[in-house]
């Protein structure tokens, strides 16, 4: 019993904030617009990130290579640089969106100006990173994010039409472009690459070896599975409350409304608190991912465990990415809008960072007996096909729906 508890805590800490602002925005909008019809897309994306993360974690543990090491080895300098540039741009947008999300939640809690909270939020993140060890950071945001299970409680409290909910898990392709756009969006929000890049570097920060492979699999399945459960709950509760009223959620605060309705002020505070921890964790994950990717591609010393003195360029680049994120968040663009772009562009760039990991994970010369077996290989290639299709469809759908405006 004690070991199960320990494993569970480890999983929760490993993922460190299961949802980010992209999940919150896209899942809530998907429920409001299409009720339960996009649940299958959430599940598809959740399995996708579990597959990608398991492979990346396994590659890191067995060969000591994080994702952008793999990318440079497999794609070479030219295409690797392209992947780096695309990935960095997306990560920057993501950092900005998450910082904006932190500021919005703080504004909702304390009613002081948004721009002030962007800066104080960023400062708080820097302090947390400076003062806590890597594992501590992950535990803080992981446990804090668990509070968002109030959404699951709300779903059961409101008791929706479970038959209709079940029906939503069956894939269906409505012909409307808005629906297709949300298929891409919901999937992409679940499969944000920065999460996986952070996870694979984290494996090396924690000194993983082949002995950690079981842990890696558990983290991937259960850790991201928890995120999937929360995402599903968001779609359901949004479909239950917002769809009949025709509400179009365009603010982060709207995400918490169902919890206020069901459980009053307590529900509201739990929801906002959970959102704060999830988005805060995501801000750290995405900013770190940007620095990891840059340092690993160029061969610099890197890692939180090294400390700023041994890895000065890595540390400095992290601060620069935070500053750029602050600048974008302050630019006056609604963070919810920035989120939409970061999610859509991330799926466009996804094939470039996914394929090298898939190839190395199946390469015996790198992985010896831990290379992809039949199931992992099949899943890996199926998802590559799905990712390519969605990456090609993403921008045309974004333009056709006017940025999800319909």
């Amino acid at each position, binding site marked *: 019993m004690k070991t199960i508890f320990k494993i569970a805590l480890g999983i929760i800490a490993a993922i460190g904030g299961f949802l980010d602002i992209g999940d919150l925005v896209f899942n809530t909008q998907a429920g409001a617009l299409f009720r339960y019809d996009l649940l299958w897309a959430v599940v598809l994306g959740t399995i996708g990130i579990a597959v990608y993360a398991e492979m990346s974690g396994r590659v890191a543990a067995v*060969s000591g290579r994080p994702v952008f090491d793999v990318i*440079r080895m497999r794609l*070479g*300098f030219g295409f690797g640089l392209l992947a780096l540039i695309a990935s960095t741009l997306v990560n920057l947008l993501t950092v900005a969106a998450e910082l904006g999300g932190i500021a919005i939640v703080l504004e909702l809690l304390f009613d002081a100006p948004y721009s002030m909270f962007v800066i104080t939020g960023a400062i708080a993140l820097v302090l947390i990173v400076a003062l806590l060890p890597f594992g501590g950071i992950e535990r803080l945001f992981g446990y804090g994010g668990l509070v968002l299970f109030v959404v699951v409680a709300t779903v059961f409290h409101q008791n929706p039409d479970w038959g209709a909910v079940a029906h939503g898990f069956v894939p269906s392709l409505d012909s409307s472009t808005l629906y297709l756009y949300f298929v891409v969006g919901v999937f992409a929000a679940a499969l944000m690459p920065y999460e996986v890049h952070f996870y694979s570097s984290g494996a090396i920060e924690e000194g993983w070896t082949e002995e950690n492979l079981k842990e890696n699999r558990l983290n991937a399945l259960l850790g991201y599975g928890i995120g999937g459960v929360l995402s599903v709950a968001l779609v359901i509760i949004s479909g239950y409350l917002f769809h009949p009223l025709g509400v179009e959620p365009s603010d982060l605060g709207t995400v918490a409304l169902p919890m206020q309705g069901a459980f009053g002020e307590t529900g509201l505070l739990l929801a906002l608190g959970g959102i704060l921890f999830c988005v805060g964790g995501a801000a750290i994950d995405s900013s770190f991912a940007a620095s990891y990717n840059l340092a690993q591609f160029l061969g610099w010393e890197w890692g939180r465990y090294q400390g700023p003195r*041994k890895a*000065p*360029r890595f540390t400095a680049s992290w601060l620069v990415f935070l500053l750029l994120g602050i600048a974008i968040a302050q630019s006056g663009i609604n963070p919810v809008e920035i989120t939409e772009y970061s999610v859509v562009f991330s799926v466009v760039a996804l094939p470039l960072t996914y394929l090298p990991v898939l190839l190395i994970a199946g390469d015996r010369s790198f992985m010896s007996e831990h290379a992809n077996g039949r199931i992992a290989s099949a899943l890996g290639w199926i998802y590559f096909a799905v990712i390519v299709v969605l990456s090609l469809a993403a921008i045309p759908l974004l333009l056709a729906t006017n940025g999800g405006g319909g």
Partner: protein
Amino acid sequence: MRREGEIYVVHRLLDEQICDSEGRRVGRVDDIELRGNPPRITALLVGEGLYPRRLPGWAARLARRISGPETWGSNALRIPWEDVDDLSSTVKLRKKAEDLGLGEGDDPQRWIVRRLPWN
């Protein structure tokens, strides 16, 4: 993987992470020097000055503008093959970074690194 035997130069050596004798990360194999007939690896080449070589036409011109010309000893460094100790998941060198002129970007003695607030 033994140094004297066969290795897939592009698949496993090029773009590989380099670590010095103390395990510090000091760059990647940006290019490889081959000499003789039949060609043998005589050195590993490291540095931003080498990036334009790895890029196609128009990108190379842009990169050359940014990184400047190849200045050996500064943005292009040569590691003689004899200084390579082992090849596994990184290229491990026999000597420390300073002895080979590597890892200056992260070197606490460099002026810009000294100016960082925590140094």
